[in-house]
């Protein structure tokens, strides 16, 4: 097991959060002029940019064209300076390819794909600083960018990474000790790399439906339900933050356009 405890005796995490607390999310829509939709999202120290182009004509080979739905093309890229050790390749390595395909699968479920047959939507995400929950931050940023681009979604798709930490050795609460592992919502890099099981969930938050769920490490079946519940609650909390940002953006961009015209 890891050399340090993920939870203190008081039930606080390394960065002082409680187990069900998210990191501070700061986000902004419409940050760039070139893409059709763009967003910047900070989740604690994880900083992500997302840009959406489309829907537009299929680029490249016509063979990729789908007759009944839009083609969703995602690219996940990590800046070489985003991690502690310099990354050799910003994209194209196996991890990035996996991330790209996970993003595509997630957004194919969230976008109303049937509305744009024979077209293509590009979603590009760039991680500028990585501090855990990279996939989650990318999903959340890309959702905002899609909203900014005006692409119809079924509902917000949000994501949350959860780590199951062993309970502190000397717990202040005996009941908690019996419950076993404690789910830590919105894990940071140190929590992710501690060797404990990780559960990544992307969900349509309003209806509570799962879109993508990935478990790393061995996890006892008994723990699964509770961890999933916590992760879903995390997704709903993220959704509330994103919703507020969208409403705020819409209220303000209406004012600035009215003032300039």
């Amino acid at each position, binding site marked *: 097991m890891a050399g340090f405890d993920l939870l203190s005796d008081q039930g606080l995490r390394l960065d002082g959060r409680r187990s069900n607390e998210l990191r501070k999310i700061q986000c902004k829509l419409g940050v*760039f002029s070139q*893409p059709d939709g763009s967003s910047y999202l900070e989740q604690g120290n994880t900083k992500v*940019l997302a840009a959406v*182009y489309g829907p537009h004509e299929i680029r490249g080979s016509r063979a990729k064209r789908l007759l009944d739905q839009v083609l969703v093309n995602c*690219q996940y890229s990590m800046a070489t300076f*985003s991690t502690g050790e*310099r990354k050799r390749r910003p994209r194209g390595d196996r991890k990035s390819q996996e991330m790209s395909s996970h993003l595509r699968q997630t957004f194919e479920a969230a976008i109303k794909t049937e509305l744009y047959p024979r077209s293509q939507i590009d979603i590009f995400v760039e991680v*500028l600083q990585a501090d855990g929950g990279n996939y989650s931050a990318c999903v959340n940023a890309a959702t905002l960018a899609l909203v900014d681009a005006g692409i119809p979604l079924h509902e917000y798709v949000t994501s949350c990474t959860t780590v199951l930490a062993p309970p502190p050795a000397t717990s202040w609460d005996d009941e908690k000790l019996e419950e076993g592992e404690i789910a830590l919502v919105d894990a940071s890099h140190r929590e992710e790399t501690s060797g404990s099981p990780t559960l990544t969930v992307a969900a349509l938050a309003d209806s509570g439906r799962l879109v993508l769920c990935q478990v790393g490490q061995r996890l006892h079946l008994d723990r699964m339900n509770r961890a999933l519940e916590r992760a879903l609650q995390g997704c709903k909390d993220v959704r509330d933050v994103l919703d507020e940002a969208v409403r705020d953006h819409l209220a303000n961009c209406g004012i600035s356009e009215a003032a300039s015209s």
Partner: protein
Amino acid sequence: MALQYKTIHPVKYLRDFLAHNVRPDGRGLLKFRPMALNVRSISSADGSALVKIGNTSVICGIKAELATPKAEEPDRGFIVPNVELSPLSSSKFRPGPPSEEAQVASQFVFDVILNSGCIDTKCLCIVPDKLAWVLYCDLVCLNYDGSVLDACILALMAALNTVSLPEVEYDHEKSTTTVKTERVPLKILSMPVSTTHAIFDDEVLLADPTCEEEDLASGTITVVVSEGKLCSVWKPGGSPLTESQMDGCVDRAKNRVSSVLDLINTALKSSS
């Protein structure tokens, strides 16, 4: 109506504006766009800066690594600039290996570092023939709206100014290295400043062009000035320039230096 006109006759649209000595974004022909600079924005990098020139945004992150110097230059470290024009920044760029434009830009940035002598690579050497620093300077274009080279040079210089390297001890007998916690700021010897002009219709010069203007222009010229001296002039083909036009470009590049340096100094002061 204006939007349709612009789409159907982009060149005529621009020409109509220029006939009245004004550009589509409301600037005069030789006016620059406002700039914004934020330094130390990425804490995982050893030095970083985010630059906005109008809508063009470039972020620079610098990572330092240890390596062995080259055999022919045993007392020098390395600087490796890399410009990335990702498909995120504009619909012009496609996913895949770096485009020709990105590779040319990387080489341009490297040449500017070399010509201006802004960093003495001998300072990056720790133990001759054994140990030296490599500074990987990655410049990622986040929004491509013209004059990207200007933004790249500005981001690079601002980021280099924030770099501090840890002290390293080398044990000759055991050939082991120990990295200490004390950090020493990097010595910057000069501050090159780049200025781009676009040439439209073979005669009109536009300072600090946007992406639209660059696309319609018959050529561009980038002048880099360092410490009041010319350090690089780059004019990749296009329509020819007269000597007086060229002088004008160089003069405006020289005049711009003080405002750019002020911006860098203010940003550095406010972040430390």
